């Protein structure tokens, strides 16, 4: 009996507490930078596409919402001919970001993706590509990879030793 009266009094005193609700459209919620929101494709510091169309993100995706098609330009750089993410399926788990070897695919702190038409939730490559490098500003995959692409031969990557001439080692 006494505990009931005490409960009523304590609940009544909650009247003078601060309310927890964030009044969303007027007050923006404080979202951490690592929030897993809308997925983007980032670019090199040079402005080239980072994605090398390795299909790892599509393979890692547990709901198979990523579709892409690999292509190669004249200089030997791989890129996706198309890159499609169906956000009506996406569960924002971030596995694609973890799988990506070139930091191309990244999740951003944007969650306001509401649409009236379900078809509008399918994002194409031009919707996904951003102009900057995203969370990894200095990184340039083709500058550090050992692969020979147009304008950069073997051994010319950053921190890479020139290839050893095996025949010169012969006695």
């Amino acid at each position, binding site marked *: 009996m006494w505990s*009931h009266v005490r*409960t*009523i009094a*304590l*609940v*009544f005193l*909650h*009247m003078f*507490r*601060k*309310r*927890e*609700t964030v*009044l969303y459209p007027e007050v923006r919620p404080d979202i951490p930078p690592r929030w897993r929101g809308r997925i983007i494709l980032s670019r090199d510091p040079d402005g080239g596409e980072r994605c090398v169309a390795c299909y790892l993100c599509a393979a890692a995706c547990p709901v198979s919402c990523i579709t892409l098609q690999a292509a190669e330009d004249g200089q030997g750089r791989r890129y996706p001919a198309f890159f499609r993410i169906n956000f009506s399926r996406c569960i924002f788990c971030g596995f694609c970001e973890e799988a990506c070897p070139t930091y191309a695919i990244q999740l951003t702190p944007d969650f306001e993706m509401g649409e009236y038409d379900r078809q509008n939730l399918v994002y194409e490559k031009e919707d996904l590509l951003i102009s900057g490098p995203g969370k990894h500003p200095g990184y340039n995959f083709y500058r550090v990879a050992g692969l020979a692409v147009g304008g950069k031969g073997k051994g010319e990557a950053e921190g890479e030793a020139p290839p050893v001439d095996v025949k010169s080692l012969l006695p």
Partner: protein
Amino acid sequence: MGELQILTVIFGVALAALVVAALNIWLERRLLALWQDRYGPNRVGPFGLLQVLADMIKIITKEDWVPPFADRPVFVAAPGIVVVTVLTAYAVIPFAPGIEVVRLDTGVLFFLAMSSLGVYSVVLAGWASDSKYALIGGLRAVAQMLGYEVYMGLSVMGVVMLAGSFNLREIVEAQRGLWFCFPQVLGLVIFVIAGVAEMHRLPFDLPEAESELVAGYHSEYSAMKFGMFFLGEYLGITLISAMITTLFFGGWLGPWLPPLLWFALKTFLIIVFFILLRASLPRPRYDQLMAWGWKLVLPLALVNILVTGGILLSWR
């Protein structure tokens, strides 16, 4: 009183009761939110007041579906009964001098009879739904509401003895010197508990306990038929609050302010208290509720009558 004046009072009371019932929904949601550190509906209109209107438009335009296994005529009639009985009970409440629909010498009995008839609504709804949850809800409602009806009637008897009348107007007039909440503290407590149980409000909402019975007796109801039960419940809260005001807190009596305002203010505060009860107390188990009623509240009510009667006899 002229014909026109009587009609004005009748429609005024009915309209006011319905409007207050609708506003109760808003008030309850806002107050519950306040006590739970939230905001509640605050988007539609000023302070979210038009939320009620939006909800009404929604519930009226919803599909009104009767399950094929239900007993159709009874199923359709049941929701109306609660609204009709509760609205009829408003007839005897004296809101202010001159503002009451009928001046019954058996006002208290009429109120008790009408709130008893409200049980039919719940029972018939539970029975006609032909579903196990609805039936269990209906069964609980019978036991709970009939049981607490007894204590409710008995707890008022102290007030009736003090006032010497069943007429609610005379009961209010008899409180000019001292409100009956002071000499009848026990009666007030029992009446509040029984009133909550009678209107099956939280924490005594066992007939519709959603954690065990889905929604109890109105599990199978949709659209405006469900809305009628909802309306009946909020009309009931207002009715019980108005009755507590009349019986224990001196009705319209009070200094400075006009009588109608005093009545509204007291009723409002009691409604707020009911909402506070809902916000803070957990629902008791069904057997606990029944044991409480018959083993504790009934003897207390009888003792209250005995002591009040004894004191009155020896005093006069």
